[in-house]
């Protein structure tokens, strides 16, 4: 047993506290918005919006209103719009409390790789490097292993980095780990997963 995508998103939502301004990445992180419940969370979209609302009803799509994944979205009564320089000013300036994003690899020093695989098509880093360098807390949500069954929690990242020493917490299908002095620390395990299971699936040093 382990957590599925929705359970990982639900667990990640527990990281968010009332009043936080948060940036959610593409993929599982986007699902986190479904689990914030009654908490007063303001979502930032780095193309220039605070207070991102849900997808529009069919027929209400507005080409001038998209999120950073270029999907049509809606505004809320709290919404504010601004330009890209201002948007990354608030990211770089540490005003965004947390970013929740996916990753290809994370290592025991908190290094993160999620933007390019050498030899494969490189699409670009978008805003990922700015986010991990600037926000208060970086939470990675990803599967514990890749499709070949190899650990994505490594002693040292092998792919080109998005940021160095930037990750605070990792939430995988097997559990939750923090980046601490000397390696990764197990915070909790997923339903039906033992600490031994988690250690066996992890290449990084667990302290």
């Amino acid at each position: 047993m382990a957590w599925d995508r929705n359970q990982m998103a639900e667990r990640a939502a527990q990281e968010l506290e009332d009043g936080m301004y948060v940036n959610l990445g593409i993929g599982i992180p986007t699902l986190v918005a479904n689990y914030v419940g009654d908490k007063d969370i303001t979502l930032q979209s780095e193309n220039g919006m605070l207070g991102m609302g849900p997808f529009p009803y069919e027929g209400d799509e507005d080409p001038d209103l998209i999120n950073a994944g270029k999907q049509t979205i809606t505004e809320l009564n709290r919404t504010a719009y601004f330009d890209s320089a201002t948007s990354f000013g608030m990211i770089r300036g540490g005003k965004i409390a947390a970013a929740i994003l996916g990753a290809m690899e994370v290592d025991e020093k908190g290094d993160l790789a999620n933007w390019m695989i050498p030899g494969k098509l490189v699409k670009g880093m978008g805003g990922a490097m700015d986010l991990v360098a600037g926000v208060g807390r970086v939470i990675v949500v990803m599967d514990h292993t890749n499709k070949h069954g190899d650990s994505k929690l490594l002693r040292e990242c092998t792919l080109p980095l998005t940021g160095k020493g930037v990750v605070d917490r990792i939430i995988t299908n097997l559990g939750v780990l923090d980046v601490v002095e000397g390696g990764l620390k197990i915070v909790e395990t997923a339903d039906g997963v033992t600490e031994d299971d988690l250690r066996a699936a992890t290449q990084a040093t667990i302290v």
Partner: protein
Amino acid sequence: MQKIYPDAASALDGLLHDGMFIAAGGFGLCGIPELLLAAIKDAGTKDLTFASNNAGVDDFGIGILLQTRQVKKMISSYVGENAEFMRQYLSGELELEFNPQGTLAERMRSGGCGIPGFYTKTGVGTVIADGKDHKEFPTGENGAMETYIMEEGIFADLSIVKAWKADETGNLVFRKTARNFNPPAAMCGKTCVVEVEEIVPTGSLDPDNIHLPGIYVHRIIQGEHEKRIEQRTVRERT
């Protein structure tokens, strides 16, 4: 002070030359200067360098200038939506400089503000930092030193941007997330040409709600915009 031109071709007259550097606004296909890009295609100007967050799609936005091989180099943060771009890049026909998105926006803003370089934490310890000046500042907890890299301001020959409304003096108002890169892109060019959906009489915009003052705007055109949606996502009506 006559800033209004009848169409995109006349607004660009005398401003285009081969090998020039153009800063363009827009994010994905949202808020792109689609009329001015089409006019640059018609003008046939070659060997262009573009600072633009994205490269459009194959048949819209900067993509139409890739089809005609008018682009020599792109400075962008994400180019994933364009197959022709990838083909030209992989075959070595097109130069590509990746910038982190916030670094690209700040490079434009800085250039427009007369700031030739600035320090940022973004990209420290990654390939983006290779060959760049590193410097430490006491910005950490209790004055701990943190490492930054220097990035350069962008000074473009021409800015092309899209706004929602302009008055006759060039004061601009943008709409929703179509603002994105348009203000910083507008600021960093020697000359800035703007396309809008509506030119309104001077005095009809609220002076407290101008998003970009007309000092940055040299030429304005009004036109019909296709405003294509890249990813149409909707929810069920309950």
